[in-house]
């Protein structure tokens, strides 16, 4: 069965890729272990000398990723969240009725309905 073969092939290849990526990650952890040990002095650089815990000083890696993403797509997010998904019923109804009007226009124009 071809579908089963495709599923299995993809599963195996993705599994191998995941294993490779994980091995690479483990290797990088092992190599950089001596550098990445957190000392008191290293932590203090992030804060202005005040006494904070290591946990507070560290930036989560998710912030690094999503910040880049959010900055790249800032105009899109501004318009999507600020103008469309406002939570106000009137704005929602505006977009929904716009969709209805566009749908009807498409049907009239492409469908060739007279009237």
């Amino acid at each position, binding site marked *: 069965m071809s579908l089963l073969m495709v599923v299995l092939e993809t599963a195996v290849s993705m599994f191998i890729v995941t294993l490779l990526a994980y091995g690479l990650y483990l290797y990088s952890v092992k190599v950089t272990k001596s550098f990445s040990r957190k000392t008191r002095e290293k932590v203090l650089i992030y804060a202005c000398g005040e006494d904070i815990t290591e946990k507070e000083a560290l930036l989560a890696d998710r912030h690094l990723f999503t910040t880049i993403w959010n900055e790249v797509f800032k105009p899109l997010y501004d318009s999507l969240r600020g103008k469309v998904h*406002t939570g106000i019923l009137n704005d929602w109804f505006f977009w929904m009725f716009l969709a209805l009007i566009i749908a009807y226009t498409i049907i009239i124009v492409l469908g060739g309905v007279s009237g």
Partner: protein
Amino acid sequence: MTSIVSQALWIYFYITLIGLIAIAVYGIVVRPNLLKKIIALSILGDTANTFIIFLGFRRGGAAVPIIPTIKPTLEELLWFKETAVDPLPQCLVITAIVINMSVTAFLIALAIQLYRLYGTLDVRKAVRLRG
């Protein structure tokens, strides 16, 4: 003469229906008050009901869709076929009216509860969920 009058009446009717739909859509989309929105929604529902009643109407010589005798003769059946209005739209409207009534009651109950909890019925102010 009568045909012109009835023609004018029909046009007037259609214009009224379209106007009512426009009013209802305006109320739903633009008015910020939830109660106004609910009122506009019932106007829309009633317009739809009126419209379907219209479709069942027969121009010229319409009669109530009831056969008065228990065992009708052929003449009575033919008369019924020629004159009776379409009874099906009225059945649909009965169903739709009941449904609209219950939905409106439910919406009003929700609006009362929203007013109790938020202290406003303005949809521009009652916004905690967004994004």
